[in-house]
């Protein structure tokens, strides 16, 4: 039985993550506020998705009289 300590390292995948997720996290500080870069990116994505949802035209269905 192979123990976890002696288990072979997983093979390198062709689709490795673009960011090394095994290192320390990166944090930003503003006074008493602290946020990780990862969470800040998620918040930014949410804000961008909201703005795009407001300004990107919605495709009209064809052949149903616009409804």
């Amino acid at each position, binding site marked *: 039985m192979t123990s976890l300590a002696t288990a072979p390292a997983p093979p390198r995948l062709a689709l490795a993550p673009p960011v090394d997720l095994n290192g320390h996290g990166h944090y930003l500080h503003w006074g008493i506020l602290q946020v990780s870069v990862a969470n800040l990116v998620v918040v930014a*994505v*949410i804000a961008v*998705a*909201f703005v795009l*949802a*407001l300004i990107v035209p919605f495709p009209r269905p064809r052949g149903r009289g*616009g*409804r």
Partner: protein
Amino acid sequence: MTEQFAGPTQEPVQEPSQEATPGPDSGGWTGALRRRLFEALPPERLLPDTQPAYVASWAYVFGVLTLTAFLTVVATGAVLALKGAAWWHVSGTGHYVNSLHLWSVELFMTFMSVHLIAKFFMAAWRGKRAMTWITGVVALGCSAFTALTGYLIQQNFDSQWIATQAKDGLNSIGVGAYFNTMDFGQMIVWHVALLPLVVSVIVVWHILLVRRRGVVPPLPLPGSAPRHVSETAAEAEVSA
């Protein structure tokens, strides 16, 4: 062939008496419940095939995106629960399903956040839709709580760190004896059995309320005449 048989006189077939026909107010509690359900949610309102014109906007898409992500979360979570930790930690397929579960949760929370922001700036509680808004907010809170218990049962250093940090916060409000984030057995039952049931019930309730009242119309533009806010799905359909 001529009918010549004139056998014994048969008793006329008894038509069901009027007394046996259920009246509009009969049927006991099941009849009352049925009438109330059909009144609140007739089939054409429960499963509509048209929507008001203002729904043709990306801002209205995030609700159904949230629901789609939620169904993916439930499906992948059911597979993980059936196969067990020894599978999702070791096998390649287990890793894949585990990742699907994580990323569908990420999308679920992201879509729900955008949905919440859009509905907040739309004042979506207008037109007797307060309970729709409340159930949505409660669904978000319960989902965040479910996500916390999910991170606690990853069985890695990350989950240990989160458990010790959350333990201090929960102890500070006096519930640590009842909800112990460092008790793996308790957390996995909360995550797999209790909280998914709670979230599912609230989500179904929320969707039924949306079907009953219809999708909230957008706010009127500044300077335009105040618009009547529809209070039912049928009214929303007509007013659009």
